[in-house]
């Protein structure tokens, strides 16, 4: 598998010993030094890497264990992909309770990053829908983890970045659906100031809300974009488009990033202008709605050989309006950014994990091509805005955040360290724990 030992952002590069885990009943394979579970490698930075150490490749744990189509209770091994679950359960009227922007993540990864989706305001994050799971530690012990157990391992492992042990299997509760289609309404908004009331109004009667924003728009248009709000469609909507087949792909890595100053502004302007009407309604299949980028295989290659960095942060409600505007001004002034920049308001449901990222506020996510130097300076400027607003950067997306910022944003890190398996580590974890933050 090409993605082995690599993260989705293809930065940083690292070499590992790789040991496959394929039998959930077997002990962990022997390894020297430290190890880290590695599912499908869709974390962007180094939270799924363990440079110089071992990766325990868990994709081979890809068996279903039990599924009850009457109740939607699903138990499966931790290397099963959300997409593989959907293939089985959508025809039987069920859907994953929370889904990130790609279906190519393992269920173990979804738990370890306590992933969120467009329905966070309604459903919380992935951990809220996990009934129980088994954790296999390096000392050979196996723990059945349930929410609220006195050992605290459930809360440490949800959002625990794989550091507490290997999740061998998990049981989750699915969500009932009546068809594979989505009723989507896209509302155009002209500035960041319009986003917040639109988001608040949409959250009331839409299960899924998210906004695409033009990360290069400035001045009065700063933060303009398209707000997408959706619900699962009834059994038989008036239009029933078929699931598109995955046809496109990036077969090779171009020698330079295709996302650059020449392409970014025209794309964003055209994408925004494409919809002239204020509001447009349509019925679409769930796949292009939830996973637009899954339609292009290996899309991460378009950023060229040096890869890219994704930046996702959340700012608390009281600081969100000013803080997001400040972040957007920095980004648009830099001229860098990505085709896909998204803005979403989280709900107030408290995450279960000690180290979970989702928290009340507004989250912004976008990619930056790795140009070697200036992107790191830009991201450090963004860090300072996030620090000042008492926000947080998402570890699953990160490859360079300083330890000070991390420890401020995740104040329960000290409590968490007691749960970290003594033989487990990651590039991310060593970085935020060992290197003091560079103050400039």
């Amino acid at each position, binding site marked *: *598998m090409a993605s082995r030992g690599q993260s989705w952002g293809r930065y940083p590069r690292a070499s590992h010993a790789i040991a*496959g885990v*394929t*039998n*959930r*009943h077997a002990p962990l394979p022997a390894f020297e030094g430290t190890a880290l579970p590695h599912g499908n490698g869709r974390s962007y930075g180094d939270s799924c890497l363990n440079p110089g150490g071992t990766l325990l490749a868990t994709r*081979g744990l890809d*068996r*279903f*264990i*039990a*599924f009850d189509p009457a109740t939607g209770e699903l138990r*499966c091994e931790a290397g099963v992909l959300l997409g593989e679950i959907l293939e*089985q359960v959508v025809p039987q009227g069920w859907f994953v309770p929370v889904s990130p922007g790609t279906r190519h993540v393992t269920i173990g990864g979804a738990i370890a990053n306590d992933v969120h989706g467009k329905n966070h305001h309604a459903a919380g994050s992935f951990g809220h829908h996990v009934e129980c799971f088994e954790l296999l530690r390096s000392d050979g012990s196996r723990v059945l983890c349930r929410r609220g157990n006195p050992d605290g391992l459930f809360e440490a492992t949800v959002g625990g970045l794989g550091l507490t042990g290997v999740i061998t299997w998990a049981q989750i509760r699915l969500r009932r659906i009546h068809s594979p289609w989505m009723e989507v309404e896209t509302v155009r908004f002209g500035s960041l100031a319009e986003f917040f009331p639109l988001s608040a109004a949409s959250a009331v009667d839409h299960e899924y809300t998210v906004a695409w924003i033009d990360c290069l728009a400035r001045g009065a248009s700063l933060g303009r974009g398209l707000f997408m709000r959706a619900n699962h469609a009834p059994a038989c909507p008036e239009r029933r488009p078929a699931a598109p087949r995955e046809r496109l792909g990036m077969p090779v890595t171009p020698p330079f990033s295709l996302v650059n100053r020449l392409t970014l502004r025209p794309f964003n302007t055209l994408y925004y202008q494409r919809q002239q009407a204020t509001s447009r309604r349509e019925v679409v299949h769930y796949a292009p709605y939830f996973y637009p980028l899954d339609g292009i295989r290996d899309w991460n290659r378009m950023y060229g050989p040096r890869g890219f960095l994704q930046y996702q942060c959340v700012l608390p409600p009281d600081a969100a309006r000013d803080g997001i505007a400040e972040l957007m001004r920095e980004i648009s002034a830099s001229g860098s950014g990505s085709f896909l920049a998204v803005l979403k308001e989280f709900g107030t449901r408290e995450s279960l994990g000690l180290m979970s990222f989702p928290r009340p506020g507004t989250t912004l996510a976008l990619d930056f091509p790795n140009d070697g130097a200036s992107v790191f300076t830009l991201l450090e400027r963004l860090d300072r805005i996030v620090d000042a607003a008492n926000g947080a950067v998402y570890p699953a997306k990160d490859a360079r955040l300083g330890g000070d910022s991390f420890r401020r944003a995740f104040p329960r890190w000290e409590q968490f360290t007691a749960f970290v398996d003594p033989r487990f580590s990651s590039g991310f974890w060593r970085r935020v724990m060992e290197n003091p933050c560079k103050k400039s």
Partner: protein
Amino acid sequence: MQKILIIGATSAIAEATARLYAARGAALFLAGRDATRLDAIGADLRVRGAASVDVFALDVNDIERHTILLDAAWEAMGGVDVTLIAHGTLPEQRACEESDGLALREFATNGTSTIALCGTIARRLHAQDAGTLAVISSVAGDRGRASNYVYGSAKAAVSTYLSGLRQRLNASGVNVLTIKPGFVDTPMTKAFKKGLLWATPAQVARGIVRAVDRRRSVAYLPWFWAPIMLVIRSIPEFIFRRIQL
């Protein structure tokens, strides 16, 4: 509904093939050494749509028990349409060169036990005048190579046996399929460096199901191994002996 018997069902290729049949709603009967892993695979196949799954723990070298296994499979599914023989080990060639006992044991697992199974199964399929006997042999059986000739000779025995069996059963309704995978990325080959020629178990499984459906005789999987092996078979021995493969 197809009734599928898989021997060596915990192998990666067999498991991937079983998933394709499960998705079609087939009934499956799985035999293998490790009962715990068979149960895990069985549960998975039920979720994936198999009409029924039964499992049977067996060491294929226990040839006395082959009849018990086949009786159980025929009884559980009310007959068998497709039999896939997929068990095997990848012996350590160096160790086999030092120990004739080990070489013979490996030959028994990969060659003799398979031939014994094929004989018994062929009689049953012949009696019902229908069905497919699909056996995973290997490109390694097409010519002996210094790096792997104990395994290769066992697979050669299997391929030759199947070729004769196919001729014998040609007029019957039974199809005999020899499957010759090349390099496949499975736990059996985890010690190898992987390159361009390597295929995934899922790719090979799709090839197996297609070859069974089309009643093919020999299937190189992926297809490009057919021309590669044609070249390798046609190298004169006086040259071949000097090549290190």
